[in-house]
């Protein structure tokens, strides 16, 4: 493809991205807004592919558009539909309306100024010649990292610390969700057509997750994309009206939730005891250790994302759970 046609493609892609972002935030109909936001995420994934970032494109399509979209859509469906325009109450008195318009313009002006400043700073950065010391250092040490995909090497070896803390952030978020109450009520059992689709889709998603986890060592993929695929299988099962969606219960659930952080810390401290730096893998073992940590991280990420979709503590079954439920119905039990 020549440069001119590629430029036209870039222009159209960026126009649709900015247009979708604007349209998604301009409408007051929440459901329409969410659907446009999901479309925005998918077109964004195309842009990441265009900028030679396939790892990010996979994650964006699966997480940014897919799971975020599912979360937002489930939240939007719980809200009452907005009233049609003719039945909305008349605007409040002119005084507050005037202040609202002034505020609106002030905020718009400030945001435009921010965009301008950001663009000016970026032009400044781009006009100076890049000193590519970091990419050079990465490609020089890639052979010792245990994997050949530079993004996986960064995430699980060179900057493993960041990924450990990221998994801790995920765990914290899901614990926060747990404290806010019970999971959303489930959905009606699906009809035979959707049920048939689910029977095919779920195994394929699990298989894809395993493939992405394995292939992440030398090609686009890895724990995050694989975890998102597994979580998608859980979301599909939930949408089909299944109450048990493959999540373990009680202590096992907590164990799986913490597995990513736990194994990461275990490996880190074991290496410390053996006299190596924290998370400084010996090159001969690096590949195996990365695969182990990624497997645990994938399970934790998938569990976290499914629990996020449930929106609270999953309903437990059994005698103790029934007693707890009764307890919650009686105040100060």
């Amino acid at each position, binding site marked *: 493809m020549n440069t001119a046609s590629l430029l036209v493609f870039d222009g159209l892609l960026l126009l649709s991205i900015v247009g979708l972002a604007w349209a998604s935030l301009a409408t007051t109909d929440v459901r329409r807004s969410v659907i446009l936001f999901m479309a925005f995420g998918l077109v964004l994934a195309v842009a990441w592919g265009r900028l030679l970032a396939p790892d990010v494109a996979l994650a964006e399509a699966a997480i940014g558009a897919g799971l975020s979209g599912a979360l937002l859509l489930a939240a939007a469906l719980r809200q009452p539909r907005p009233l049609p325009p003719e039945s909305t109450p008349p605007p409040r008195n002119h005084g507050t309306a005037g202040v609202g318009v002034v505020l609106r313009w002030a905020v718009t002006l400030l945001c435009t100024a921010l965009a301008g400043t950001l663009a000016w700073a970026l*032009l400044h950065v781009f006009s100076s010649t890049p000193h590519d010391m970091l990419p050079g250092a990465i490609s020089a040490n890639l052979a010792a990292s245990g994997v050949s995909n530079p993004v996986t090497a960064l995430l699980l070896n060179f900057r493993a610390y*960041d990924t450990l803390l990221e998994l801790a952030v995920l765990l914290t978020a899901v614990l926060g969700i747990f404290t806010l109450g019970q999971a959303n009520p489930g959905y009606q059992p699906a009809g035979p057509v959707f049920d048939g689709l689910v029977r095919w889709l779920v195994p394929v998603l699990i298989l894809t997750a395993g493939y992405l986890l394995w292939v992440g060592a030398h090609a686009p993929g890895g724990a995050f994309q694989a975890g998102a695929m597994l979580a998608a299988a859980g979301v599909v099962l939930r949408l089909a009206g299944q109450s048990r969606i493959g999540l373990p219960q009680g202590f096992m659930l907590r164990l799986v939730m913490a597995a990513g952080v736990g194994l990461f810390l275990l490996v880190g401290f074991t290496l410390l005891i053996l006299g190596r730096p924290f998370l400084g893998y010996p090159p001969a073992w690096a590949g195996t250790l990365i695969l182990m940590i990624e497997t645990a991280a994938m399970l934790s990420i998938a569990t976290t994302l499914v629990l996020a979709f449930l929106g609270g503590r999953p309903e437990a079954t059994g005698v103790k759970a029934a007693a707890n439920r009764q307890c919650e119905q009686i105040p100060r039990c």
Partner: protein
Amino acid sequence: MLTTQLLYALAGCVIVALGLRGALLHPSLLQRVMAINVMGAGVFMLLIAVAYRGPGLAPDPVPHALVLTGIVVAVSATALALALARRLHAQQDDD
């Protein structure tokens, strides 16, 4: 400096501004959460544009890893925000 890099970076700036405006002005809590996500997408676009080195050249993997981390953190923050919003609505209904 590459035209492609510049184009995508400028679009990123516009998306950041759009998202910020939405997050500050939207009456609906859900759409504010969405606007913050849009703003994040703009930041991701800036980072990926900075990483781009031109056709046929390997891009800088550091911003890619940052964005990958960012996407996962963004979805967990979104989930927490939505759970908080749900609890808020439930309490307002009780009053």
